[in-house]
């Protein structure tokens, strides 16, 4: 076997997996804290891609010409506005339904997803949007005939994912805010009796999920260069799968699930058959669900009495 092809597929899979992981965080945290699946999360990611493209264009037109500066500024603005989206959606669509049946917020989430898609289509047009390639080039290993490469954008995706996952883990495991989150997750009533503002905590989790989606949206927009209002759907489904695979509710699980999904897709696609890569990825999911129903790193569900 040619090793440069294997390495290239590993790089491809790692990049894809990091993106899945970043988005999976949004699913897993929301599920962890209120036990609902936020099906609109993929579309939050789509919105962030539009925001990133719009603000990048604006900043360039204002005469900012330093690429790193524009990227950092755009990332900040995109994160902020996407956070507002996450916060508003929670307030409008989920909070009023929090004490109704479990199905109600789920249906509401699907509704929000459709609203966001159509809103983007009507306001931004149905066509493909794009951003120019800002960061070009790649590190190549090997000679001219047999090389594998990692583009600077792929490096950035992997690095930014690793850093933001690290920061998030620190936030949840080591800070007072993280303790509040975990307390709310374990027992919302008890947490509020002890003086934790659980409503705020839940909102903040949606905000964090949205910020992670914004990071993914920005990175993917820069890497693949094109998107449309429908782009959140498939990525959302894949990220949700990653979250379930890793154990929904578990933060490291989301990242692990994303990486497994990304790597299995690209290795299967690269060495066996592209047609059936999704079949393979979902077969792994089925097997994990059979032998470890709570996912790879998930805790078994304790029946709440």
């Amino acid at each position, binding site marked *: 076997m*040619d090793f440069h*092809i294997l390495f*290239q*597929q590993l790089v*491809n*899979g790692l*990049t*894809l997996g990091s*993106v899945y992981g970043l988005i999976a965080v949004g699913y897993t945290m929301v599920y962890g804290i209120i036990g609902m699946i936020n099906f609109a999360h993929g579309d939050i990611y789509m919105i962030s891609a539009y925001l990133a493209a719009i603000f990048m264009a604006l900043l360039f037109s204002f005469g900012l010409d330093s690429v790193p500066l524009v990227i950092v500024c755009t990332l900040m603005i995109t994160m902020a506005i996407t956070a507002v989206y996450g916060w508003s959606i929670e307030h409008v669509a989920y909070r009023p339904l929090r004490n109704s049946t479990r199905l109600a917020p789920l249906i509401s989430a699907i509704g929000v997803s459709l609203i966001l898609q*159509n809103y983007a*289509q009507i306001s931004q*047009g*149905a*066509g*493909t*949007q*794009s951003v*120019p*390639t800002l960061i070009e080039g*790649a590190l190549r290993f090997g000679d001219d005939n047999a090389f594998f*490469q990692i*583009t600077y954008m792929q490096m950035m995706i992997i690095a930014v994912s690793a850093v933001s996952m690290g920061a998030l883990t620190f936030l949840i495991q080591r800070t007072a805010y993280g303790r509040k989150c975990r307390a709310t997750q374990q027992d919302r009533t008890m947490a509020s009796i002890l003086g934790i503002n659980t409503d705020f905590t839940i909102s903040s989790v949606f905000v964090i999920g949205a910020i992670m989606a914004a990071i993914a949206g920005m990175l*993917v927009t820069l890497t*693949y*260069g*094109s*998107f*449309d209002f*429908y*782009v959140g*759907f*498939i*990525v959302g489904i894949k990220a949700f799968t990653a979250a379930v695979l890793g154990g929904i509710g578990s933060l490291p699980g989301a990242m692990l699930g994303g990486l497994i999904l990304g790597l299995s*897709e*690209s*290795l299967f*696609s*690269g060495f066996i*058959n*592209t*047609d059936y*890569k*999704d079949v393979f990825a979902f077969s792994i999911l089925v097997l994990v669900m059979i032998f470890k129903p709570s996912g790879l790193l998930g805790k078994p569900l304790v029946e709440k009495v």
Partner: protein
Amino acid sequence: MISKQFKRLAVSAAVAASLSAGIASAETIKIGVAGPHTGAYANFGVQLWQGATLAAEKINSNGGIDGKQIELVKGDDACEPKQALAVANRMVEVDGVAGVVGHFCSSSTLPASEIYEDAGVVMVTPGSTNPAVTDRGLSVVLRNTGRDDQQGIVAAEYIVNDLNAKRVAVIHDKDTYGQGLADAMKAHLNKIGTKEVLYEGLTRGEKDFNALVTKIKAADADVIYFGGLHSEAGPLVRQLREQGVDGTFFSGDGIVSEDLMPAAGGGKNVDGIMMTFGRDPRTFDEGKQVVAEFRAKGFEPEGYTLYAYSTVQAIAQGIDGADTTDGEKVAEWLKAHSAKTIMGERKWDAKGDLTRSDYAVYRWNQDGSYAKAN
């Protein structure tokens, strides 16, 4: 008991009211425009709608069809076969259309056409090129565009004879149109003695094809033939070039959209893309004025815009000529005669295919325009 009877009375009153409403509006002739008006391929829907709208306006201002005004009805199938069935049923039963311009994606046209056949409504597709659309022998179905087997042959001949390609990778999007086209090309390629080095399908809606690209690179392909639409073709080209694959990218009429260039990451990646497409509809003398009118409105009539325009004209002439809205008779009339449209005279054979195929090979330029290559 009495209340029940009252309810029934109310229902029948409502039915009567809706019936009379139906009669009142019978002075117009409804024509459905079915295609992807929303969803990932909505820009094709925009092309169809723009073309059909201007055609209907023009016919109406010239007195309509035999004095009756055309009223267009939008049917959104999003290129989803299931939704296409719902759209077709609604068109037939609720809107009572006299003809349908559409559907667009072959995978939608195939199931929907069965419903039009049962209801006796003429359906002329401006964009579905899969052979099965007309090969099933439905009496109300016509096609105002070419067939994938014609298109595939033109592509295969060009790849072997003009590009002198030895190593051809065939990629498709696992959809009726994309895979059908790729298979048609592959069949003729094999027939003239070239075996493909790779045959794989990608997933519609995804953006990351890097794994597949690495595989294409390992196969050392000098032509990458893709059966599918621009939203997948764009990212695929971009990732091919990023990984340093410089083989010719060759595709079919599914990529004819100004969205291809942004999706592919700009002019330098689009430059040199080859495709098969019917004669550029903007080059017909009959359509010069309409093209100018579109441009005056700030809309470039690219891709399928003029196909939709021409299809509305054909249906209108069919209804006028057959002097009925009975789909079978309209289709019969169109097959026996011909339609004078902005894309020249359109003649159909007994199956409902155009008698003349005008597929040619085009080459994209850096500025996003395309010109005939042979």
